[in-house]
């Protein structure tokens, strides 16, 4: 068998194995896995938050996304040009006084907005402990914390 034939055989076997795995096990589960060793100083993994912890959740996604699939009890604070930052500040101050443990989440790990929003909440100088959820909203979905989602196995 020449090189081309052998290459064709390798490709065919690879595709057959991949196809068989997909057929038997289904599509890959893309559950977000948070590694605490890779966290930035102000980040936290969902698994590190005790289930009964009293948290003020802040959704840094767009208003329409928050209205559709925000974490129950969360407040909105994004940096959309159409939004009023001072209204966000005024709304969150009394909530932080009631509950100074704040966690901000964005769409996914790629979204840097949650860090920017966390910085602004810290700048309010209310003594709040502010963290950013690594993995963002996707991590909450994978954990079954968003309405309509179920924990990924």
């Amino acid at each position, binding site marked *: 068998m020449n090189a081309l034939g052998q290459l064709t055989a390798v490709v065919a076997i690879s595709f057959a194995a991949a196809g068989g795995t997909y057929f038997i096990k289904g599509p890959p589960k893309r559950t977000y896995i948070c590694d605490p060793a890779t966290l930035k100083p102000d980040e936290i993994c969902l698994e590190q938050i005790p289930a009964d912890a009293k948290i003020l959740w802040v959704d840094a996604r767009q208003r329409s996304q928050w209205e559709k699939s925000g974490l129950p009890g969360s407040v909105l604070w994004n940096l959309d040009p159409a939004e009023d930052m001072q209204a966000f500040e005024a709304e969150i101050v009394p909530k932080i006084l009631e509950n100074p443990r704040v966690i901000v989440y964005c769409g996914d790990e*790629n979204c840097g907005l949650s860090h920017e929003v966390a910085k602004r909440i810290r700048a309010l100088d209310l003594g709040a402990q502010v963290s950013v959820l690594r993995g963002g909203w996707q991590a909450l979905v994978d954990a079954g914390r968003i309405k309509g989602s179920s924990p990924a196995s």
Partner: protein
Amino acid sequence: MKQALAIWFALAALIHAATLDFKEMSKEINAPADVLTVTADFEFTNNSDKPITITKSDPGCSCVSVQVSEGKLRYGPGESGTLRAKFDMTNFSGTVDKMILLFLNDDPADKPSQILKLKVNIPVLVGVEPKTVKWDLGAKAEPKTIQIKIIEGQTIHVTAIKSSSDAFTCVLKTVADGRHYELVVTPRDMNAPGIGVFRIETDCKVQKHKVQQAFGVVRKPSAAETAAKP
């Protein structure tokens, strides 16, 4: 068999190696105070020997829009283009760092081939420090001061202070007219929690800097703060 595997690995390596050559991967812009948007152009060339398709660009914020050379997304070997990032600064001030994730060819959804960085320095025309003055419940009602400072080279006057609550008295002092003010805040009742929102109105010509906001709170100290006290 060795030859086949070598070809296979060489092909795989080529697939992963193809990226666009950008003249600059990061840009820094000093934005004027009176503009609402800034634009950064990232010029690139496909110096690989195979076509590259930009499948997605993700600026991670609705405040940044990205356009690639009038919609052209596939670049043959030797072809050049420009990625234009337009940043809406309406709700930003100070130093802002933005990243633009660039997904090429068959990049997985969480691993972009390239990341462009945009740093924008936006002047803070009116600085308010601290944003919040705080008192513990039952403590002495001592006045506390919020500093209002105007950026160097500008003259901006504080025209009014509007408080949302009668629970605080507010006195505006002029340290240097058009340059530096002090807002002295005193709570009236230290036995009940209270929140005051203070709107600091100015004659600043730039709309987004015209009104600033600060807070006064009388509250029970948090457990962490209580523990931190000697």
